[in-house]
């Protein structure tokens, strides 16, 4: 019934039979043997073409052609490995870099949060009329919690660094205090043990602590039986009741969670202490939830007036809140790496044009032998696919290596970075990028074949090098595009670089060199109401002892103590409202404090900083007026304060602040008023990118260190930090064995603070360098091609009396022309693009003329260098030789 398909061999045999029969007949007509066979063949036409056409009728032709093209391509690659290597390496670099960066973007921006129905999770803030979004005051949270009808659950939490001991060694880790709905809101279950029980979630309930997987592994040895562990945290002892799974990391980098109900409640409606996370009900949108909370916020405002700061509520999807301002940086990186890939593609496209031009004769011969245009196009597609996919595989390998290196350079504050990996989504991206490049290059090559006059190449291409004018123009266009794209990346890198330089060259207000820092924590009584007198006195004695012993270390020039390291750890500073109470009775309690605070003429805003007298000398913060803390200032004498210059200028513009009495007890729970005794120089305490902060310094000998402080020793020493640290470690161990200490230098701490900017600069700079090299090579290729094509012309010119310098001018002029157009186009594109990044710049505009000029100059110099090499070759052309090849 079904007919077997006729084989190619059978058909070939029939042709052979035909040729024999025809030859027989021709012989019969009187031709000799040889002529007969020849004429038979001529009459038949092309045997291979006929066979191919037969073939084409019966087979999955495209497949066979594809296989043949692939084999042919591989053969070509083997024949010309340098060309293939350059193409594959260039593309692999582009694909590898894009894939690495995509893996970061995937983990940080794209992947859904690791909680059930993550789209229902939101963060909630108070919305102030001035645009600020502070955390929630406790009573406001309670109102949101009880009055809303759009949330399935709403939870408050806060976290901070605390000393936790009771594990294998004491550790300074982040501990979060969370309200009852916290874990249910996120929808997570513990890996071991249980969540908090009802008894642990009521005010003054049974203490309990849940630890992170990392803490459990590192400090509790991953022991299954949790019952034997009690962790000492500040003043309390907490039995470990649960371990969270390794994937759970909220808030980021927290090692343990305790119920916040253990804290005494704060009735204030303007103490913005609580972060809030919520889960909206099924079928409720974020917009609806926000409208609901807004209504409640407005009601609170109406009811409490100036006792509250909020006028509205802000509700943001949790995923967006976590990513925050990292988004712009990551999108910039993605953009830069995308442009790099574009440059790589343009470079390879240029190479392909040159390659095709060099093989014009071969192509023409194949056309003459009966290869249709369709077949040639197919062949180009196959070629670009083979090369691109080889590059894709190499690119994925590069990305895999990149993903291993990335954690070393990623800024520590990049959220969700632990999820960075080469996973399915990343591989899919690599595949898509590779396929896109392959198709683009293939279509490009095909279009070239379609448009070029290959059929005439046999005639015109007889001479050695000539390619068509069209292919030369095309390569020029590609190089111009490459130059322009490279300029965009360079401008981005330049602007980031200049921002970075501006930032690091900005003085923080003190000398940064040779500063060793030691951050530690002291056991503090829990709660915000401060410490009792004797506890404070004990703490001061301990601090005095530590400082005195550290001062004896050889090489320690001076040793200061502060409640927070400015700039590098500026986020550890707390700011708040202070009262000016000159002559009035100071508030006896916080209700009174709040009442006086209503009168805006009697308040000011400042950072609260604990310091020792030697702290100012150690850092080199100058005393402007008045006096420093002194021996006479102790716990029982009147408490004193020093203020920063900008606070003095802004809060007391026409008055002498010295002698003014203020009340800042809301920061440390001690309502003893402070008398201002001195004014010191400004410090950019919150960061180099911000104006100097208004600061009120209090003396640790009078106020001690409370929960709003992160005790830090600063030591100026020219000795090696390692040596000092090892001696200091011994001193701490002796005097305060349970106190964990982090030794560092100020430069290192600043390195951490600058890490995200440095990371962005480093990567964009790297991409800019690669793009610059590629563009240089691309331009070199075009100019070299230009010279090769004009060898005879240049020979003739030289023969009829042109100077070598004319030749140099001719060739360099060609390079300069392309570079100039590329730079002009690039500048226009950059002007549009860098605006989008302006939030990443510091101290310069997105259109900084110096950066633009510098980058344009750099690119032009590279372009001139790239065209000088072939230009020199052109100058050395021997007219005799050049003309001989005519």
């Amino acid at each position: 019934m079904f007919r077997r398909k006729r084989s190619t061999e059978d058909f070939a045999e029939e042709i052979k039979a035909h040729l024999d029969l025809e030859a027989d007949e021709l012989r019969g007509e009187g031709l000799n043997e040889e002529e007969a066979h020849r004429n038979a063949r001529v009459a038949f036409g092309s045997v291979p073409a006929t066979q191919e056409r037969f073939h084409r009728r019966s087979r999955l032709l495209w497949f066979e052609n594809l296989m043949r093209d692939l084999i042919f391509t591989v053969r070509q690659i083997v024949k010309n490995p340098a060309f293939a290597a350059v193409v594959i390496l260039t593309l692999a670099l582009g694909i590898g870099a894009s894939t690495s960066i995509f893996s970061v973007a995937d983990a940080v921006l794209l992947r859904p949060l690791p909680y059930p129905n993550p789209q229902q999770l939101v963060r909630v803030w108070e919305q102030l009329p001035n645009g600020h979004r502070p955390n929630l005051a406790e009573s406001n949270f309670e109102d949101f919690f009880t009055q809303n009808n759009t949330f399935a659950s709403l939870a408050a939490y806060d976290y901070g660094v605390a000393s936790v001991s009771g594990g294998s060694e004491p550790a300074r880790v982040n501990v979060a205090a969370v309200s009852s709905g916290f874990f249910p809101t996120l929808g997570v279950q513990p890996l071991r043990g249980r969540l908090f029980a009802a008894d642990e979630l009521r005010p003054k309930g049974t203490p309990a602590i849940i630890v992170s997987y990392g803490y459990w592994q590192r400090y509790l040895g991953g022991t299954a039986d949790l019952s034997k562990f009690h962790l000492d945290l500040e003043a309390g002892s907490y039995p470990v009741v649960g371990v969270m799974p390794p994937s759970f990391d909220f808030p980021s980098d927290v090692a343990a969670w305790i119920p916040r109900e253990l804290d005494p409640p704060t009735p204030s409606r303007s103490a913005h202490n609580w972060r809030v996370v919520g889960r909206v009900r099924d079928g409720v949108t974020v917009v609806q939830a926000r409208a609901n909370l807004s209504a409640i916020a407005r009601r609170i405002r109406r009811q409490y007036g100036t006792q509250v700061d909020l006028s509205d509520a802000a509700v943001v999807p949790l995923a967006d809140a976590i990513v925050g301002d990292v988004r712009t940086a990551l999108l910039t990186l993605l953009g830069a790496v995308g442009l790099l890939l574009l440059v790589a593609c343009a470079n390879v496209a240029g190479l392909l044009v040159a390659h095709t031009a060099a093989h014009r004769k071969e192509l023409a011969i194949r056309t003459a032998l009966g290869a249709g245009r369709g077949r040639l196009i197919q062949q180009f597609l196959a070629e670009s696919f083979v090369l691109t996919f080889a590059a894709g595989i190499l690119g994925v390998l590069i990305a895999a290596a990149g993903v291993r290196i990335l954690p070393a350079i990623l800024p520590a504050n990049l959220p969700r970075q632990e999820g960075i990996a080469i996973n399915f989504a990343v591989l899919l991206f690599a595949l898509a990028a590779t396929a896109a490049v392959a198709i683009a290059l293939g279509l490009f090559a095909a279009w070239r074949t379609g448009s070029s006059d290959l059929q005439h190449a046999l005639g015109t291409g007889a001479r050695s090098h000539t390619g068509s004018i069209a292919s030369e123009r095309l390569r020029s266009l590609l190089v111009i595009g490459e130059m322009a794209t490279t300029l965009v990346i360079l401008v981005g890198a330049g602007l980031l670089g200049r921002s970075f330089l501006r930032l690091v060259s900005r003085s923080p207000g003190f000398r940064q060199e040779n500063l060793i820092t030691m951050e530690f924590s002291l056991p503090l009584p829990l709660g915000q109401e401060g410490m009792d007198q004797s506890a404070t006195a004990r703490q001061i004695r301990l601090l005095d002892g530590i400082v005195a012993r550290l001062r004896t270390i050889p090489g320690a020039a001076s040793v200061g103590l502060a409640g927070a390291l400015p700039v590098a750890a500026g986020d550890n500073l707390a700011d708040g409202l202070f009262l000016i109470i000159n002559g009035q009775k100071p508030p006896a309690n916080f209700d009174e404090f709040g009442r006086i605070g209503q009168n805006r003429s009697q308040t000011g805003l400042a950072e609260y900083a604990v310091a020792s007298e030697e702290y100012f000398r150690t850092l080199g913060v100058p005393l402007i007026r008045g006096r420093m803390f002194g021996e006479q200032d102790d716990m029982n004498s009147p408490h004193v304060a020093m203020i920063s210059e900008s606070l003095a200028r802004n809060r007391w513009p026409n008055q002498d602040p010295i002698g003014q009495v203020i009340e800042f007890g809301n920061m440390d729970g001690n309502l003893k008023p402070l008398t201002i005794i001195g004014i010191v120089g400004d410090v950019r305490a919150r960061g180099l990118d911000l104006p100097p902060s208004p600061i009120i310094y209090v003396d640790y000998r009078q106020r001690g260190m409370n929960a709003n402080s992160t005790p830090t020793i600063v030591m100026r020493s020219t000795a090696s930090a390692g040596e000092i640290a090892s001696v200091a470690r011994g001193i701490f161990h002796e005097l305060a064995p349970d106190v964990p200490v982090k030794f560092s230098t100020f430069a290192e701490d600043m390195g951490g603070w600058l890490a995200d900017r440095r990371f962005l600069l480093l990567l964009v700079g790297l991409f800019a360098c690669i793009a610059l090299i590629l563009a240089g090579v691309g331009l070199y290729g075009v100019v070299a091609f230009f010279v090769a094509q004009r060898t005879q012309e240049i020979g003739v010119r030289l023969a009829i009396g042109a100077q070598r310098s004319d030749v140099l001018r001719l060739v360099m002029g060609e390079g300069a022309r392309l570079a100039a157009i590329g730079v002009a186009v690039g500048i226009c594109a950059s002007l549009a693009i860098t605006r989008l990044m302006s939030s990443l710049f510091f101290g310069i505009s997105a259109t900084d003329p110096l950066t633009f000029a510098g980058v344009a100059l750099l690119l032009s110099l590279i372009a001139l260098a790239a065209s000088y090499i072939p230009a020199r070759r052109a100058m050395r052309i021997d007219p005799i030789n050049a003309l001989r090849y005519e």
Partner: protein
Amino acid sequence: MTTPRNADDRIALLQGTLDLLILKTLVLGPCHGQGVARSIQRQSEEVFFVDHGSLYLALQRLEDKKWISARWGVSENNRKARFYSLTAKGREQLVEKTSEWERLTRAMGLILGGSTQPSGEEA
């Protein structure tokens, strides 16, 4: 039927014509490809030159359409050859194509004859 297209009329004409010529040749009895080629050449008084490669492809096409059938045999001068013969379907096609062809040539003749005459009168 195939209507001659502007750009490729030569090929289109050839294809249709060649099929018809093959069928017509095979009506006389089974024949191998070389014989068909010779026969067409001879009968057309050498006006047609048949590209042999195309002929074999045409034979294959007709075989695929089951208008002709083929089997290997031995030629008159003792060479191995593939012999083609007309199927019943092929005979039907021959009749049909022949009448089509005649209509076509008649129509062409009318048009060509009719278009030269008036211009001649005018001249």
